[in-house]
């Protein structure tokens, strides 16, 4: 097991290296550079001074080598060009924390409630609860988070002023963003859970369990849930990564100091070090969450083996 995990982590570094390399060259091929996003009437002298300061006057492959050297010898991702003085690593550390405070909680809530509701819908198939949940699930998937955020903001801060509108600091600031962000995962997990539970309750071992005389709740908890949760787990990995990339809209509506806005500004302003930093961060999160999901598989379903260890 441990050996397997170590191997996966080793692979992760290879994936990171490949993603970084591709991103690095891709972003240098798009037209525009950090300077074009700045002041319009830059004198020629300023441009010269600037390109020299950030090494942008050298060929791309040299810039790439310098970048790699920075990572391997000093463990640094460099300094943002758009926001001079802000170290990319520090920004990632600090602001990913804010994003995860909203996003991870939202996914966790969505996952737990989604699993419960999905199971409920399947057990009450074609009855009223199933229909109601079906509508909620479709809404959750199809209503864009921007609309949801704006409507929630109007309802709960203007119509009924229960929560603060904008900003960050108190727990109350987090309620609405979390609510908005948990809606889509909640709907997704409800759908996944419903179909897999429907599949499982028609299996022979469920009939067997019932025949053994287990109570309804025992059957559900020990046999149905465990067997039907795997598909939901599969999408949990990508979902966690989405939290960091997809939070931009909610962050912008509620003025949350998250990583999303840094990523978007970085791409728009061609802030090369920041783009690379964010890309690496997202890749790492994605690969790590896949690993965690794989480990969870084994814990939940002992029939699954990670490696070929017997």
């Amino acid at each position: 097991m441990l050996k397997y995990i170590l191997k996966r982590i080793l692979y992760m570094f290879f994936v990171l290296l490949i993603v970084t390399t591709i991103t690095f060259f891709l972003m240098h091929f798009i037209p525009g550079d950090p300077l074009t996003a700045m002041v319009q009437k830059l004198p020629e002298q300023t441009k010269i001074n600037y390109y020299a300061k950030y090494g942008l006057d050298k060929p791309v492959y040299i810039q790439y080598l310098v970048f790699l050297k920075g990572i391997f010898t000093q463990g640094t991702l460099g300094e943002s060009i758009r926001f001079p003085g802000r170290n990319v690593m520090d920004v990632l550390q600090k602001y990913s924390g804010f994003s995860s405070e909203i996003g991870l909680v939202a996914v966790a809530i969505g996952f737990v409630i989604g699993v419960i509701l999905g199971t409920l819908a399947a057990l009450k198939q074609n009855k009223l609860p199933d229909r109601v949940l079906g509508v909620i699930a479709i809404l959750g998937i199809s209503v864009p988070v921007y609309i949801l955020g704006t409507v929630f903001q109007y309802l709960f801060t203007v119509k009924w002023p229960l929560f603060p509108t904008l900003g960050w600091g108190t727990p109350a600031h987090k309620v609405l963003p979390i609510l908005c962000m948990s809606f889509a995962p909640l709907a997704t997990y409800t759908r996944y859970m419903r179909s897999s539970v429907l599949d499982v309750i028609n299996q022979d071992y469920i009939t067997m369990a019932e025949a053994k005389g287990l109570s309804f709740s025992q059957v559900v908890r020990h046999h149905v849930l465990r067997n039907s949760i795997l598909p939901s787990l599969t999408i949990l990995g990508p979902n966690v990564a989405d939290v960091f990339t997809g939070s931009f809209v909610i962050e912008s509506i509620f003025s949350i100091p998250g990583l999303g806005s840094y990523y978007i500004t970085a791409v728009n302003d061609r802030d090369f070090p920041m783009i690379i930093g964010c890309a690496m961060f997202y890749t790492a999160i994605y690969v790590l969450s896949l690993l965690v999901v794989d480990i969870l598989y084994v814990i939940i379903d002992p029939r699954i083996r990670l490696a070929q260890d017997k």
Partner: protein
Amino acid sequence: MKKLLTALACALLLMALAVCACADGQEITVYRTNEPTTLDRVAATIDEAGKFILWDASEPLFRIEEGATVLSGAESYSYDEATMTYTFTLRDNKWQDGVKVTAQDYLYSFQRMVDPKNAYGYISDIYCIVNAEDIYAGKMDVSELGVSAPDEKTLVIQLNEITPAFLEVVPLYPQRQDFVEAAGDAYGIDVDKFISCGPFKLTAWEHNSYLTLEKNDQYWDADNVKLDKVTVLITNDAEAQYSAMLNGTLDYCRFTSSNYINTFLNDDRFQVEDAVLPTLTFVLFNGNDDLLKNAKIRQALSLAIDREFFVEAMYEGIYPPAYGLLSSAIGINGVALRDVAEEPVKALAEANPDPKALFIEGLTELGMDPDPSKITLTFSISSGATTDDTIALYQAMWGETLGVNVVADVSEWASFWSDCKAGDFQIGTLAWSGEVDISFLFNLFLTDSAQMPCFTYSSEFDELVIKANKSMDADERLALYAQAEKIMMADLAAIAPVCYRVQKDVLNSKIKGWDFNVFSTAGHRHVYLDD
């Protein structure tokens, strides 16, 4: 499970209560649409949001209040015309930690500005200071800059050319050497990497979320600063701003859509004010065109534009119609050009009540067929949300009044503008913004500047503008610019002004002392809440 739910409900309720128990007092909340990139006034990346914070957190020698330059960090100043030298005497101001603000601090910020290492972006604004250009190009040492601090309270700045707008354009902010050097590259990017000496001090900066400014007791004029706290939220979402304004989170907001404005107009919790922008929407004529090279043709086209009708149809009457180059936002030291000179196209209209007759006169002068219906004009415009409406309006106005045909040529901005620059157009429409320096819009039309491709240039206009640009007498300058404006807009009709722009500022109705001038650098120094 039930217990858990009850606990959760209680927690939510408590939070809600905590939110509603907002503190009153002299505190306001405003916003910016983006995070300041830096608070280092002389960094290459200083942006509007950064400058906005610095009006409160720093102390320029001069501020622009209600359009006029007023002494702020300087107690007095003198200007010697013979040597082109400004001498400023500083007030007894202190940094937030109690250290005196000295002339050396202002000198230091100038030295950083011209230091090539810092790559300051607006450097051309200070090329008027002796040796600034050479130092910036690395040809001279920073110490040779024409700025000096003979003693703690005196700052001397030597210019190499007459620069009437010097006090308005050049950023005269202090920076403390020991602090800047200790912070290094990180100066101005965080609350602990910045030191204030303005009416307010920066006390919190949560990036991409908010900044807070609290009253600075060390400020020389602290007795007259009435607000205790200014919170600046970072929000770029118009819907969020609307909600925040309605529930009192924000005390100030700016809208351009009438959908939002009507809500506030009918609610006495808010005051709505027009702030005139320095922007002009105009029609650009190609003076090299076989038809448009005739002044009477251009005048007739300009007069055939029904500006009142246009703004009503396009902007619900919010934007004011334009008959001159400068809106009432632009002037010299609090006196707008519009205060002293009437808009020239108005007089032109009075002298020529029938644009069609004028147009036919022009055709005859050109030796062309005097039937306007045989003329087809090509109207170039860059694509946008209102493009089709604009085209239809010009087709109607010129078609009905002059009897000409108008066809449209729509392209996106970059290719539209490069076609214009190349002279590959007949008539185009665009908007351009002026700056606090009154000469900015005039300079665009100088023969040598080649910035505005109207191709109708005039040496008389050039002489007037150049003379005005080099005069230190405000009244004389205004008179010269007024003459130049008349030549450009009426006699030559090189362009046809159409409308100016305004923005709607929505404020909590308790707020007093707000400066609506778009060029204001007053910050929140004079703002207060009054019940």
